[in-house]
């Protein structure tokens, strides 16, 4: 044990947190501190930290007011209820939104199908006329376009 070691473990020793053999060594060193200057520093430090300890331990504790507990719980319950109402209304709002999306997809697909089938009919007519040699756009192009 040295003064340096003593000061390093001083606070855990005063807090009663050292193992018994370490605590014993600290106590023996403290008791055997003589008139040497360094030892008086160790004692002074130990006294100061002990006075801290007493001061803190004697600080009065205040009881928690009972009405505060109820007030906090009332606020928390009000928030819970509000969150549940919000979740409930959000759930209901998604139903019309989902219906609107499905409806628009359905209508869109109907329009698409009709448009596509109309285009197909037109192109079939053109190719049929062209393949049977009727006068049509194709023969007009060849006549007027100077391909002859």
């Amino acid at each position, binding site marked *: 044990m040295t003064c340096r070691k003593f000061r390093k473990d001083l*606070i*855990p020793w005063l*807090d009663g947190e050292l193992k018994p053999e370490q605590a014993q060594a600290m106590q023996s060193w403290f008791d055997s501190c003589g008139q040497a200057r360094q030892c008086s520093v160790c004692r002074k430090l130990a006294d*100061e930290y002990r*006075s801290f300890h007493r001061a803190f*331990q004697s600080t009065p*504790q205040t009881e928690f007011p009972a009405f*505060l507990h109820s007030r906090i719980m009332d606020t928390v319950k009000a928030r*819970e209820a509000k969150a549940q109402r919000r979740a409930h209304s959000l759930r209901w709002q998604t139903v019309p939104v989902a219906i609107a999306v499905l409806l628009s997809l359905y209508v869109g697909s109907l329009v698409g199908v009709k448009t596509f089938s109309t285009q197909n009919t037109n192109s079939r007519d053109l190719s049929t006329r062209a393949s049977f040699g009727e006068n049509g756009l194709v023969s007009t192009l060849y006549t007027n376009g100077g391909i002859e």
Partner: protein
Amino acid sequence: MKPESFEKFLTDNEKRIYNYLLRFVEVDDDAHDLVQNVFIAFYDRIGDIEEKTAVAYLYRMAHNMALNFIKQHKRMVLRPPEDFQNVRDRSHAEPEIDYTVLNNAIRELPIKLSTVIHLQYYENLSYKEISLKLGISVKAVESLLVRAKKQLRKKIMKENGGGNVSNYRQTDSALAEQ
């Protein structure tokens, strides 16, 4: 943490946080408001908080809210006379110990240090119990407490004008006798 466990957590920790906040504010009404704000803010974030470190988180919130409160109220504000009815009565001479000096010193400590000091001295918890409460190792608790007490000693010595830490008791006794 689950919202269902909030009430038990409140019951277990309300007194310690209330006493912790009283180190920062003088008026009981202010402490009442602060403690409510702390626990309601805690509840708002409860889903994101782990149970293991919930107490440490609570202390951090309390500390930050208290400091913000002090900063906001730093300027002198005219208060109606009835507010002073709730100020702690310090007219009788404290026999030896000036808690104002201690409270001021604790107030200036960083959050982690003031938390472990509070848990050790005001709750009489051992290093092991503090480590379980805060979710840190026993060695970490020891290191924090050593640092905290060294800093407190320096601050109190500075308050006493460089004298001994234990001199502040003598000064107040001398004042009380006048």
